[in-house]
Structure formats: structure tokens, C-alpha cells
């Protein structure tokens, strides 16, 4: 049986691949809870200017040459980019509902929010608690 690729080499989500062509060339893109950075890498390779946020500095370090990296605790600290606007905000495999206002506010006029997350049934099956959270393996 073929083993899965390492997380940093995992392919981007089909959803992200499908819709990011709507972005203008060189768009400012925010990858929220970027994890191993599969989307940050893919977006940077497509010529976009990527800002990647994650709480894990070890995961961000390899992205330093590809993206602006921001280490932040999105669930326990303040929004790390107040006043910053992006042509797109990309979120996959992550859901923290109290963050919604900040995510929406980070989208520039005319910009896109591209979101892919697990449904509640999945969260329940993993024993994750509360109405606000649903996060999977790092992206």
C-alpha cells in the first residue's frame, strides 16, 4: 500500500485549487492555521503574497522564505493582524467560531473567503467539545 506523503508535501485541498483562480495575480492571501503549510506553499508557488498564521513556530519556520509567517494563539490570544486586509483569507481543517468576525474583517473589499472545514458529526466522533471548536490535523 502506498504511504501518504509527509504533511509538508501533502497536496492542497481540491476546494482551494478549484477557487483560487479567482484571485488576481500577486494577491495578498492569508492562510489561517496553516499547519505544515501545504496551502501557503501552493499559493506562494502560484505567485501570491502569502501570510501564514499558526500557533506552532516549528511548523512556520520552514515557510519563512515563502511567506510572511505569524506565530499566534488564535484561540487564546488577540487577533494578531488588526487592521490588515487581504485579497483572500483561506482556512482549511480548522474552525474556531469566535474568530469569524476577525476573519471576515481581514477580507478586503472585493476579496474572497475560502473555507473548508469538518462538519459537526466529525467533531463529535473525535470527542471535541463545545460549539466553537472543530479542528483537524494541521494543514
Amino acid at each position: 500500500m502506498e504511504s501518504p506523503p509527509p504533511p509538508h508535501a501533502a497536496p492542497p485541498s481540491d476546494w482551494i485549487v478549484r477557487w483560487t483562480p479567482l484571485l488576481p495575480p500577486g494577491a495578498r492571501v492569508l492562510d489561517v492555521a496553516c499547519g505544515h503549510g501545504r496551502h501557503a506553499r501552493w499559493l506562494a508557488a502560484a505567485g501570491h503574497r502569502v501570510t501564514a498564521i499558526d500557533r506552532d513556530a516549528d511548523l512556520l519556520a520552514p515557510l519563512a522564505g515563502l511567506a510572511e509567517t505569524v506565530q499566534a494563539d488564535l484561540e487564546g490570544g488577540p487577533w494578531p493582524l488588526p487592521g490588515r486586509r487581504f485579497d483572500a483569507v483561506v482556512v482549511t481543517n480548522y474552525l474556531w467560531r469566535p474568530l469569524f468576525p476577525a476573519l471576515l474583517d481581514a477580507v478586503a473589499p472585493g476579496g474572497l473567503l475560502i473555507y473548508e472545514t469538518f462538519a459537526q458529526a466529525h467533531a463529535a466522533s473525535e470527542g471535541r467539545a463545545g460549539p466553537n471548536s472543530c479542528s483537524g490535523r494541521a494543514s
Partner: protein
Amino acid sequence: MDVLRAPADTVGQGPATSGEWRVVAFEEGRLPARGDSPEREVQRIVARRGGAASSGAELLASPG
């Protein structure tokens, strides 16, 4: 489902948002198992914030 809909107790927290939003695409579905990841239910959305001209290529995607 409605995972992406914020519960009432979170509405109004954080920075104020403004502008109209248009859903470009929305899907619910299942991702097949891959490697050590089990099959997963997912919700997906693409939404564009108002305030600037958008691409004419955008179409509302059919579910699924």
C-alpha cells in the same frame, strides 16, 4: 450541519465587520479516507465581500 454558521453567542464578538457578502460556492460532502485520516464530512464555502468589482467568471456552484 451548518458548521459555518456562528452560534448566537459568538455574534458580535471581535472587530466589527461591514460590507455585503455574496456566496460564490457552497458544498457539503464527504472526503474519502486517505492514509491514516478517516473519511470526513466537510463543509466548504467561497464568499466574496462586496465593495469592488468581482470577476464575471463566478458562478454559484451546485451542491455536492
